[in-house]
């Protein structure tokens, strides 16, 4: 009986010693507050906006022109908004949002010019629109 009690006391002592050793080691960690620095990029302007060769399909009396548009990738952009219309200032332009760097537009208005510009964006960030490029809608 006495030996069991003695063994129990010894076990408690050893445990306390080991725990004490752990506390002593952890005491060498020290902290403080400070500041780090990060920097944001900026959404650029799509370059090389190009209207490719226009092709047409006719169904009955209606002819539809398919207008391919492409541009260069912009760093950080996750989507692009393509505005197109018949007037140069693109008031009341049609808007199409894509994630890649090319798309095709369709129009049934032949012979007149089509004007296109592209704006890159990411989340709420918006870049500066590209210059407007124009091309007569003629079937090749």
């Amino acid at each position, binding site marked *: 009986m006495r030996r069991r009690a003695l063994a129990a006391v010894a076990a408690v002592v050893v445990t306390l010693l080991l725990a004490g050793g752990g506390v002593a080691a952890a005491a060498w960690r020290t902290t403080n507050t400070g500041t780090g*620095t990060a920097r944001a990029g900026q959404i650029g302007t799509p370059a090389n906006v190009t209207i490719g060769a226009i092709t047409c399909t006719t169904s009955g009396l209606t002819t539809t022109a398919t207008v391919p548009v492409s541009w260069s990738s912009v760093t950080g952009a996750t989507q692009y908004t393509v505005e197109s219309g018949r007037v140069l200032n693109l008031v009341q332009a049609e808007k199409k949002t894509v994630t890649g760097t090319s798309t095709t537009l369709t129009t049934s208005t032949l012979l007149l010019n089509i004007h296109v510009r592209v704006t890159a964006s990411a989340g709420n960030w918006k870049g500066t629109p590209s210059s407007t490029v124009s091309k007569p809608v003629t079937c090749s």
Partner: protein
Amino acid sequence: MSPRRARWSSDRRLSWRWWVRRLPAVGVIGVVVALLLGAGLASAAWLSSGGGTATSRAGQALPPTTTTVAGSAITSGLLYPGSSGDVKITVNNPNTYPVTLTSVTANGSPTATGGTGSCSTTGVTLTSGSSGTTIPANGSATLTLNNAASMSSASDTGCQNATFTIPVTVAITSP
């Protein structure tokens, strides 16, 4: 009936049977003493590697400080909505022995300056920042924590080109 002898009388202690009966207790005491001595020796060896004594180093351990890194020093790993970017931090060690930078953790909301417009919602969070870099005695180290910050798509468009100051907690340990 003979009179009972005192429990701790000198003649009992001189008896070899008395010592044999208490051998377990003597053994336990020996183990405890050995552990205490061992702990002392272990501490002394660990502390000596830093070039000081246990007592003096424990009393002089100083917390690290940081120096703000200019935004112009960051030319890569820039933040965009929906992506991660780098964080730079200069950590100063005021101690007379080298230390190891063990962690850099977030300690508040980042603030923005120098953006293209209003940037009240930065969308920036510090995601991680462990290091393991050794900082020399009385020296400093400028660290680049790759992809340690992330930016949500909620970031205001005026945050473009901004520099973000990120409050952090820096932890160091003796090597």
